[in-house]
């Protein structure tokens, strides 16, 4: 394809090899690609030799990169081409003060000063506390009422603000404003010594510690030319699957709780803990923090750990099957799950939903299959039987993925590969003037990191994308014409990350 460079997942390329076209061509290339069943993996700005540059990584069944130089503005593709661009363009405006002209809804993403110290696109004064001077979208009318929730919510969960426009019980519109969790991760990463990078990446989203840190370590490995032995890949793959199972189980429990069916809520909650404890068996931390390091893993999986994992899987698999059956066969549960929070396949494609949110709408994309890393190339793919886009489909996809992941771990445990040695975090020399993108299927969907280095190998730009960045809009659309009392149920069926989005 013209003006697009095909790249591999986790494969470093020279920056000079990336096409750098003019802004009109850039827009035309991206529009053509996206209209032809293409999706955006990353789209961001950075400063190169004093000039603003936009870079896009896009995918169909292959991965491509392209870039262009821009001034202070660029023509927005959101309104003209596709909704997939909307958050990326707002993020570019917020981070680098580059304004997408004619963007249909240009508003802040995370509420922070831009990196260049230039004039704020949104006219915010950041000495004011959030939410600053932002006017939420409002529906007017005598019968309309507004419900504001958050940032501090009723449970032990992360902060975010939800603004509902309702007519009686019916939600006409939900606007989600995040940014409360913003810790400045992308700005922090290039400024710290490498020894801190895995620790920071494990805390981008604590429930996706393995997913995000794997992206970081694979990027560093590509840039430093480090090889990972098969035994370490085995451990990393098992860890990513354990993370997936633990989170899916927890969410099925939360969904049971939200429809007031308490027995599975209690059982799933407890079984989720068993999988966190298996991560603790692997590396001493229930979230897998400290496990993945550039070049391998920091903890070897020995015979004892293999035995403990196998024994636990044998014990718990029938229990999971039985509790899933209890939940999914209950008529009262089916009545609440079915036709609730439906997103059509067309809508999901327009928004570019990923992970189980996309798969529940019939978008089969799974990064483990399309862009396999670690051991995934040799493992069987999963299929989803129910793709109606409602809560029931999202819950069913989770159930199917739990069973699939259990079988993957069993397959992996049969492989004899062991790591010879645990690796320790050391400073590596990174290839200069290079670019790398890494993609892994975290439990929520496509996690991706990009690293761009300067000529001396230091990091010029670190870009992170959590799957939640695509999917929060999906939740907002799920609530359209839905009863407001169904919000908790819809919300849990997605269970998106606040801090993964806010960075």
């Amino acid at each position, binding site marked *: 394809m013209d003006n697009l460079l095909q790249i591999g997942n986790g494969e470093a390329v020279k920056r000079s090899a990336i096409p750098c076209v003019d802004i009109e061509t850039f827009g035309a290339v991206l529009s053509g690609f996206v209209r032809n069943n293409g999706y955006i993996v990353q789209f961001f700005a950075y400063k190169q030799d004093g000039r603003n540059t936009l870079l896009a990584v896009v995918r169909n069944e292959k991965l491509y990169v392209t870039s262009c130089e821009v001034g202070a503005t660029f023509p927005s593709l959101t309104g003209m081409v596709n909704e997939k661009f909307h958050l990326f363009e707002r993020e570019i405006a917020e981070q680098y003060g580059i304004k997408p002209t004619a963007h249909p809804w240009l508003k802040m993403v995370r509420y922070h000063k831009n990196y260049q110290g230039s004039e704020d696109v949104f006219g915010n004064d950041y000495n004011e506390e959030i939410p600053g001077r932002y006017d939420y979208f409002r529906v007017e009318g005598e019968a309309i009422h507004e419900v504001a929730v958050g940032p501090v919510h009723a449970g*032990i969960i*992360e902060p975010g603000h939800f603004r509902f426009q309702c007519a009686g019980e019916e939600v006409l519109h939900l606007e989600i404003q995040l940014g409360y969790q913003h810790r*400045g991760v992308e700005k922090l990463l290039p400024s*710290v010594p490498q020894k801190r990078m895995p620790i920071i990446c494990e*805390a981008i989203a604590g429930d996706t*510690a393995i997913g995000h840190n794997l992206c970081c370590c694979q990027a560093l490995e590509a840039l430093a030319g480090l090889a990972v032995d098969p035994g370490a890949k085995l451990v990393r793959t098992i860890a990513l699957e354990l993370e997936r199972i633990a989170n899916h189980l927890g969410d099925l429990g939360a969904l049971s709780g939200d429809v007031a069916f308490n027995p599975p809520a209690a059982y799933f*909650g407890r079984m989720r803990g068993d999988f966190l404890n298996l991560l603790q068996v692997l590396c*001493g931390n229930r979230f897998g923090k400290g496990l993945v390091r550039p070049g391998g893993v920091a903890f070897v999986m020995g015979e004892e750990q293999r035995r403990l994992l196998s024994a636990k899987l044998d014990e718990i698999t029938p229990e999971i099957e*039985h509790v899933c059956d209890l939940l999914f066969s209950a008529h009262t549960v089916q009545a609440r799950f079915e036709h609730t929070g439906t997103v059509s396949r067309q809508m999901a494609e327009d928004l570019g939903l990923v992970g189980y949110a996309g798969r529940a709408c019939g978008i089969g994309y799974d990064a483990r299959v399309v862009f396999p890393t670690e051991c995934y190339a040799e493992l069987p793919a999963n299929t989803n039987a129910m793709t109606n886009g409602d809560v029931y489909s999202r819950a069913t996809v989770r159930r199917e993925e739990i069973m699939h992941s259990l079988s993957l771990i069993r397959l992996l445990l049969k492989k004899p590969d062991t790591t010879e040695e645990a690796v320790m975090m050391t400073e590596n020399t990174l290839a200069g003037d290079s670019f790398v993108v890494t993609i892994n299927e975290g439990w929520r969907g496509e996690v991706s990191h990009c690293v761009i280095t300067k000529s001396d190998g230091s990091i010029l730009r670190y870009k992170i994308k959590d799957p939640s960045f695509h999917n929060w809009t999906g939740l907002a659309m799920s609530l359209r014409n839905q009863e407001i009392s169904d919000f908790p149920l819809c919300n849990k069926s997605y269970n998106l990350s606040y801090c993964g989005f*806010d960075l």
Partner: protein
Amino acid sequence: MLKIIKNKLEQGCKTSAYPKQPIALYERFRGRPEINRSCAGELVRQCAEACPQDAIDAVSGRIDLGRCTFCGLCEFLSKGEFVRFSQDFSLGAARREDLITDGTYADLAAHAKQHFKKLFGRSLQLRQVSAAGCNSCEADTNVLNTPFFDLSRFGIDFVASPRHADGIHVTGPISRNMKAALLTTYEAVPSPKVVIASGCCSISGGPFHGSDEIIGDLNSLLPVDLYIPGCPPHPLTTLDALLKFFK
């Protein structure tokens, strides 16, 4: 109905007998560090330099558990010569300085504020505030409500409204964008009230120390009564700290 009964029988009662009976965590779990005070200075210096959190003082050999993420690198690097992480999950402290350790630990129960024991010993209601927490502290606090830990049996509950709470339990490095909401929540709690800093983020900024988008140290905003270190603190670390401090 039959399915519910069948599952109930299969699941059984999973609630732990802790604290009446001790719980042994798996040997890879990294809890309270045992520090070799006569370790060679050069090895300590190497560990201090390699520590991603800069939690080790190269001269005194003390480890700041308020910064440490318990990644285990110093134990690995020194082959256990300088530090060994034990499976003792008891890590809570009433004073910030008690977290900077040479391998000796202050007795939390003895340093706990006695009037809190009297006020909240039989019933403690907490409002949790996630102030840019990465969701692992939140998740491992939430897990205390699952059947295994069953926090309610100790008279401790997490409540929805700060008006119903006796104190706040804060996680995360306190982003600039959460500062106002955190302070408002604190003000809404009736006095006398408790402030608990949970996880290295709320104690020192944790992995994000140095970022200009965070406050980093809860104690600089509000008077902290109880510190619970870890990344995240193990649920038992939190439970142990709450029981020792309030019971």
